């Protein structure tokens, strides 16, 4: 095969990826950016400027929602890690063969139904006339119906539940690759459970922890359905704000600016997270 032919082959193989990147990522973002820097001055009259971004900083509701979304997403990520790590450790290290496969599948099963149905499932449990409320009334803890929905805790439960798999999978993969004899050597040299977790298991699992955290954080930050359904009208989630700018208020310019701010926010937080954990993107998500 000649040089030119092999190069043609390479281009052809790359074409679908390149087209996908260009058509679905790059062009829409350029378009969005152009929309976001057009400030409306009158009917069909626009000037270029950063006015839309200024609106965000001058209106407290906007940046409060923004900060709240970021904070809640970080909290959800940590909570998912806290719950997911023991689960992943149990699956990877303490079970073998069929049990392992079964447990792994059980983590996957909730994802066979759509996110909407899953979230409605939580609503059935948590609403005023739901199972928890009825149970509390039945055993006599509470006299009237209790509303568990439409608060931050409900949003948190939904976010953690939706993200769990994306934390457990990378953790199981990295923990699986940890040689059992390293843990045994740790005990043999006088280590206890805590020091082995801190000095051996967590450093080994760090790429998986970071990769799981990045995915869960991105999913939480960009989640629309769960915060709106479980948090109700007052959920104040930034994606909800973007939605209302585009759909309810037809203010595409401000919506686009919000979109870019969200992109900037997620990139910044992921970058800070990588720096703090001394990991690189290629070591974690790129594996």
């Amino acid at each position, binding site marked *: 095969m000649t040089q030119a032919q092999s190069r043609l082959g390479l281009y052809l193989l790359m074409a679908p990826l390149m087209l996908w990147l260009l058509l679905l990522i790059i062009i829409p973002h350029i378009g969005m950016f152009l929309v976001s820097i057009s400030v409306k001055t009158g009917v069909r009259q626009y000037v270029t400027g950063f006015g839309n971004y200024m609106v965000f900083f001058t209106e407290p509701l906007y940046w409060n929602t923004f900060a709240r979304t970021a904070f809640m997403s970080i909290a959800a990520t940590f909570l998912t890690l806290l719950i997911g790590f023991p689960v992943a450790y149990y699956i990877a290290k303490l079970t073998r063969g069929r049990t392992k496969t079964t447990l792994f599948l059980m983590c996957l099963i909730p994802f066979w139904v759509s996110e909407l149905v899953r979230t409605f499932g939580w609503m059935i449990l948590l609403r005023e006339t739901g199972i928890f409320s009825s149970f509390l009334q039945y055993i006599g803890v509470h006299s009237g119906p209790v509303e568990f929905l439409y608060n931050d805790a409900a949003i948190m439960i939904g976010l953690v539940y939706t993200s769990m798999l994306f934390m457990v999978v990378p953790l199981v993969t990295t923990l699986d690759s940890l*040689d059992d*004899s*390293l843990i*045994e*050597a*740790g*005990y*043999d*040299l*006088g*280590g*206890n459970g805590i*020091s082995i977790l801190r*000095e*051996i298991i967590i*450093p*080994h699992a760090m790429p998986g922890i970071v990769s799981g955290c990045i995915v869960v954080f991105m999913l939480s930050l960009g989640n629309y359905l769960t915060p709106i359904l479980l948090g109700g009208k007052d959920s104040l989630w930034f994606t909800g704000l973007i939605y209302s700018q585009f759909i309810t208020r037809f203010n595409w310019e401000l919506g686009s600016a919000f979109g870019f701010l969200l992109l900037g926010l997620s990139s910044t937080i992921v970058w800070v997270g990588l720096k703090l954990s001394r990991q690189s993107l290629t070591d974690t998500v790129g594996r």
Partner: protein
Amino acid sequence: MSQNKSATAYDLECQNINKDFDGFKAVDDVSFGVPAGTFFSILGPSGCGKTTLLRMIAGFQEPSSGDLLIKGKSMIGVQPNKRPVSMVFQHLALFPMMDIAANVGFGLRQRGVPREDIAKRVETVLERVGLPGVGSRQINQLSGGQKQRVAIARCMVLEPDVLLLDEPLGALDLKLREHMKIELKKLQSEFGTTFVYITHDQSEALVMSDQIAVMNHGKFEQVGTARELYHTPNTAFVAGFVGEANKYEATVDAAFGDAVTLVTPEGMELKGISPVSKLEKGDKAHVFVRPEAVRLATEADKFGGIENLNTGIVENILFNGANSHIILREEKSGGEMNVAIPQTGEFRDLNKGDKIFIGWEAEQTRCYRAEG
């Protein structure tokens, strides 16, 4: 020696140790003592229970019954991180997430030794294993032999009463393995610590150990020095497993005390001794003759009054330098025999098809009763 042979004279003592795995006896009533400062090997084929035994000493598994004493103290129910033993793992289990100093200092950190002391003791022990100044390097920057020494240093810095080694030379290539054998023996005598070494490689055990236990099917077949095991094996298994041997199934033709005459099914007559089992005419026996115990000669009268004298045809020459062998076919019965070639140059020109006299002593023909 005789008066202080109390329980405390041993660094490690096992008393009737058993280990059952769902009805399968992995370790079957094993008792032994390892005197302080010696190199003790447990030699056996894979699946003989030696790893289970070692893991019980380290504390990763509990014996089903029996007692395990280290320096006279029972270790039953003591967690592995509280036992005064350290283990060098089969694949060394060095922590890849730490540099070498952190690896070696791990155990001291767990004990709460002050930071400056750790640094000092780590550097000292690294010097003793011949790796001064490597502390800041990463594990993957070391060669196989260096990793081996770091793994030993990581254990020795804790000054354990007993160091357990689980076939640590298995992953090395042949040349390095030969080198590390000598190195390990040297380190053991320098540190003066009791080493318990398990291996399936007889040459590792023979070269390094003061005492060797040969293990098979969960039981100790024989415990002794390398020479004892090689020259006076007590069981057919030890005779076949330690060193090389020509093995024959034969029927006893005549027996006078220790001395027996046997005949193989092919009709080869063998004169041997039966040191352990009392054999009678008609008994079936396993007969072992070491290739290096058989002498070669071009004329029959060179042997004098040797008990076993035969003629053989050279069938094959397995040239391997100092360790060369010939495969002979005995002329009368057609029985096969593996004979080591003496390295005196006398038989350098031996060729396929040559006829040669072979002779060996009855003393070197060890017979054991065949079971069943």
